[in-house]
């Protein structure tokens, strides 16, 4: 039996999942990796997971790395399932793992976007824990992760939307603390919205320009554009019934109005959680020819504000450019700077 006495699964062991999972394995916890990329499963079985941290490289043997197609051979159920797939893969992944979740187990969505409701729809709110994850990492080669934030610089927030789930949050905190600072919040929905405020400016605009985040921010007009995206997201958060709350280790005193707070959250990401060469998850997806989370981030802001008859021109413009890039109608690159900064004139 592991120190915590819980059976833990990581579903989605890409850059973030395997980086975090490796910390839990080294802490002696009972961890199973479940992964969809065959070459990555094979590499981890053969050589373990290699995590390249800023100051050291750590290779951790992975006792159990399963391919998705082997899930149907599982006999035991899991107490804690960490889900680290793209937000758009949440529903099918949670459906896949549902038969292997203990009756009193929890699914923890360590993802961008408001995936909490997708998870709850499948396993029930009493087994759903939402989470905010703030760390940067990438993987371009099977079995090898570059994690840009060591555990002392990684930050997580956890919370249930149902009292029964909230009761189990401390167990999850105990497991996850091996990978970073973990706060349990009593309003996870608001915390996830705050992360989305940072993501709305950060993720897609820098990817449209095909630049590392720090380089994109230095281009004239881009920082202002990102802050406008964040402000719209903050308005969407409030329209959705959430509050502006401190995340990333900020204090309540540091939470100002929606305008300033959007800029401050983006500043936190840039100062504390990214390196000069950090590429966002959206750019990494596009480099691999894969879909990105633009609809789950900027698209959500547009949809939520539309419900109250409000517009979100910066996010809508971001969504449209991302759509064109994914449809192959537009190439990502710095040549898009003017296009990005020029919002379409509203009709009428």
């Amino acid at each position: 039996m592991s120190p915590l006495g819980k059976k833990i699964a990581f579903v989605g062991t890409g850059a973030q999942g395997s980086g975090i999972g490796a910390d839990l394995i080294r802490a002696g916890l009972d961890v199973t990796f479940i992964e969809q990329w065959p070459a990555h499963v094979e590499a981890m079985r053969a050589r373990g997971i290699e995590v390249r941290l800023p100051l050291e490289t750590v290779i951790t043997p992975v006792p159990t790395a399963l391919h998705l197609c082997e899930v149907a051979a599982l006999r035991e159920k899991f107490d804690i399932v960490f889900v680290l797939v793209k937000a758009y893969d949440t529903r099918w992944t949670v459906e896949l793992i549902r038969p292997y979740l203990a009756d009193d187990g929890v699914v923890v969505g360590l993802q961008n976007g408001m995936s909490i409701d997708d998870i709850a729809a499948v396993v029930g709110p009493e087994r759903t824990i939402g989470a905010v994850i703030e760390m940067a990492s990438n993987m371009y080669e099977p079995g090898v992760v570059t994690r840009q934030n060591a555990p002392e610089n990684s930050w997580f927030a956890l919370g249930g939307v149902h009292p029964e789930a909230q009761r189990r949050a401390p167990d999850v905190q105990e497991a996850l603390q091996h990978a970073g600072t973990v706060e349990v919040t009593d309003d996870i929905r608001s915390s996830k919205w705050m992360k989305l405020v940072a993501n709305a400016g950060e993720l897609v605009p820098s990817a449209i320009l095909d630049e590392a985040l720090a380089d994109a921010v230095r281009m004239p007009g881009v920082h202002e554009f990102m802050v406008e995206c964040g402000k719209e997201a903050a308005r969407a958060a409030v329209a959705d019934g959430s509050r502006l709350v401190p995340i990333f280790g900020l204090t309540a005193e540091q939470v100002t109005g929606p305008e300033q707070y959007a800029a401050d959250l983006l500043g936190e990401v840039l100062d504390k959680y990214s390196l000069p060469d950090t590429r966002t998850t959206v750019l990494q997806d596009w480099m691999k020819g894969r879909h990105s989370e633009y609809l789950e981030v900027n698209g959500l802001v547009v949809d939520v504000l539309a419900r109250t008859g409000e517009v979100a021109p910066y996010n809508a413009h971001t969504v449209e450019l991302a759509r064109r890039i994914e449809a192959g109608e537009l190439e990502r690159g710095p040549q898009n700077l003017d296009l990005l900064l020029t919002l379409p004139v509203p009709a009428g």
Partner: protein
Amino acid sequence: MSDQKIAILGSGANGASIGADLTAAGLDVTLIEQWPAHVEAMRASGLTIEMPDTTLHVEPRTMHLCEVATLRARFDVVLMLMKAYDSVWAAELIRPYLAEDGILAGVQNGMSTDAIASVVGPGRTMGTVIEISSTMSEPGVVRRHSGPARSWFAIGSIDPSAEPRREDVAKLLRHSGTVEIVDDIRATKWMKLISNATVLVPTAIVGLPMFDAITLPRLREVMVGAGREARDVGAAAGYPLLPIFGLSAEDVAQPDSVVDTLLDELYERFVLPGATTTVLQDWTKNRHSEVDDINGTVVSEGARLGVPTPVNSAVVEVAHRIERGEMDPGPANLDALLRLS
């Protein structure tokens, strides 16, 4: 129509068989599959379908599940040939890649049609009954016991808006067998469930090919008992008995003997020597079977409708013991089956 984009979601033994037929017909079809070695084998040396009197070899377009996120275009028709218990997650997985006016057809066992509809909407859902016998022992190679001449499908929609699309799916499946378009697909799938409840799990529990299992004294008793309970639960649910699987209108007018007749017809027309059921194949691979989607559905629907189902409960219990590793499939299990039921 010729530029219709088609996907096979789940290219195991049955899915690969149909995918090979559609590829050979020159259609625009992509075989999506979760088993990495099978995808690699199909890419490296193509897909081989060994049938009793001929062998089909094609070079299909294939895609591993993890590559679905690289898809740009949407599919007009997706034929899903996953295990029944994988229906919902597989439908969720493919939903973003199904055209607004596309069709997702669940070509599988179990009463999966409504579950699929809950994901993609009833207007984009087609229910299907499939009658093919095949196995895959090594990646890239399928042994299909029943070629197109001996394969049979029924297709139906559960929403009037999908009715005009039945022919789109039928047209595809006609490359792989005889296709019947039916008005009540739920009742048709329940007929198949009666047949499956009778044959699949009971014969798998004794660990034998279907042909050999039925020669065991008293196994037939269990099989027919399970089938009759399924018949009664279906009647309580309002599903009429239908003249399919070789049954005549007279046969289905005699509920007392219909399960025996169905079993005899099945063995005469579809069961081939050496063929093992999908359930036994799963157990041999140490995987979960569809027992909960077949006999388990008879039990849960029976409980809901107040119809006792002791035989199916026993079948489910023994199957679960096998899946928990407490016992192995084998003729000795017949005692446990008789004792419990």
